[in-house]
């Protein structure tokens, strides 16, 4: 699919990697919708940055974990742009849920954002794509979809479910809509990482370094434009999932 003049919605597109993906789509000529939950100022700033590329940009508040809010968001987007051609399910939280979990509400909070959110968004935006005969959905997962991370059960289950949802949607929305996932490795240190932790994380990849958010936006642009790829997961992790095997036998 050509990106120019299409409409792209990025959930959680106000900051961090979501923002970089959104700006890459804007730079490639897409009109963009920046979804945010609480980061209104960042969203507005990001929209301004997008407009500098000569495209239209709108911000829309919605907590993707709530279907009524997602439906309202879809209505607002439809009124402005008539729907979206490209949906990037990027909104996520990085929340520990160690066993045994005292507050099980945490489990629901995490899985609602990781699983329900992408499902709700696909559910409200895919019908327009099907009607137009074209659309692209990209879900952002991570390596926890395949490997357990200590204390991140809800997160890991959420990303594994999102991977399953990716394949399921690819099957059911074909041939008009292509659905893929991207699994980034370490590409942008969280604000609470100190230098030592940043260095340790780099050592956990085969390439011995951090990637960049641009590596991920590059994968987004590639997937949007690659008309014969669906149901796949593009792993861009610097070999993080094999790095622990460097010094071990098996």
């Amino acid at each position, binding site marked *: 699919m050509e990106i120019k003049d299409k409409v792209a919605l990025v959930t959680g597109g106000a900051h961090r990697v979501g923002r970089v993906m959104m700006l890459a789509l804007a730079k490639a000529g897409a009109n963009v919708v920046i979804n945010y939950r609480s980061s209104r100022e960042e969203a507005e700033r990001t929209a301004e940055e997008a407009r500098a590329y000569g495209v239209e940009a709108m911000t829309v508040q919605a907590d993707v974990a709530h279907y009524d809010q997602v439906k309202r968001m879809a209505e607002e987007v439809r009124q402005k742009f008539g729907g979206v051609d490209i949906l990037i399910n990027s909104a996520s939280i990085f929340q520990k849920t160690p066993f045994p979990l005292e507050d099980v509400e945490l489990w629901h909070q995490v899985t609602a954002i990781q699983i329900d959110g992408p499902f709700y968004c696909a559910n409200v935006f895919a019908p327009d794509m099907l009607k137009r005969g074209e659309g692209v959905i990209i879900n952002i997962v991570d390596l926890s979809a395949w490997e357990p991370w200590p204390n991140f059960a809800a997160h890991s289950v959420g990303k594994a479910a999102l991977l399953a949802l990716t394949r399921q949607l690819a099957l059911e929305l*074909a041939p008009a809509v292509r659905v893929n996932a991207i699994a980034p490795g370490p590409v942008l240190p969280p604000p609470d990482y100190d230098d030592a932790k940043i260095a340790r994380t780099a050592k956990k*990849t085969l*390439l011995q370094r951090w990637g960049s958010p641009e590596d991920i936006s590059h994968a987004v642009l590639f997937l949007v434009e690659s008309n*014969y*790829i669906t149901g796949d997961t593009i792993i861009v992790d*610097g070999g993080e999932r*094999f790095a622990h095997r*460097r010094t071990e036998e098996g």
Partner: protein
Amino acid sequence: MDIKDSVILITGAATRVGRHVALFLAKKGANICFSYYLDSEPWQQTLRDIEQCNVAAMAHQTEIRSAASVRELVNATVEKFGRIDVLINNASVWLRAPFLEIKEEDWDTALDVNLKGPFLASQITAPYMLKRRGGVIINITDLSAFQVWAGYAHHAASKAGLVALTKSMALELSPHIRVNAIAPGTVLLPENAPPEKKQWAEEKSVLKRVGTPEDVARLVEFIIECDFATGAVYFVDGGRALV
């Protein structure tokens, strides 16, 4: 890695998908060395077509199953271009036989061309890349590495082996060399394929069509340019792996 002005060695590229990938990369400004197997292949035409892209090009007749022949190929490439930035292990055979009828020589051919060839080419090329502390290796496998197809036991074993080799090389050649694989679906039917073969391939893909060699070439381009990708297998199959 930038493709423009890079040096790319691609095996088995006189014809079909390899030829398309070589030409695609040449149009992006890469200098190309490609290998071919038989004199009867239209390698001279491919060479001329690459040269018309205003890049340096060479072709080399290579027996991919022979270390000596592969060494000649790699040495000739380095002699002409001074280095190899990207190696694409594309040369492949496509043998079919029911399991009980696979002859020993056919088993050997499948494993030697599809698995030993990439091993040899990578092992002989990698030291040049390591010396320059940078390089990309791309192995062309296919869906048979992941799906069961009746009549392709030897082919599937070779392609599954190539996936394992990809991961092993990504591990051992890191951090300077990135190694990935591509698993295409049907992107180019044989020239003499009957119409029902095309229909069959379209039905197998959830996108209900066959792909193009350019779909593979664009994925090659992405892998070369994406500096944080290693140890991965990327599908370009119209969703065929889903069903």
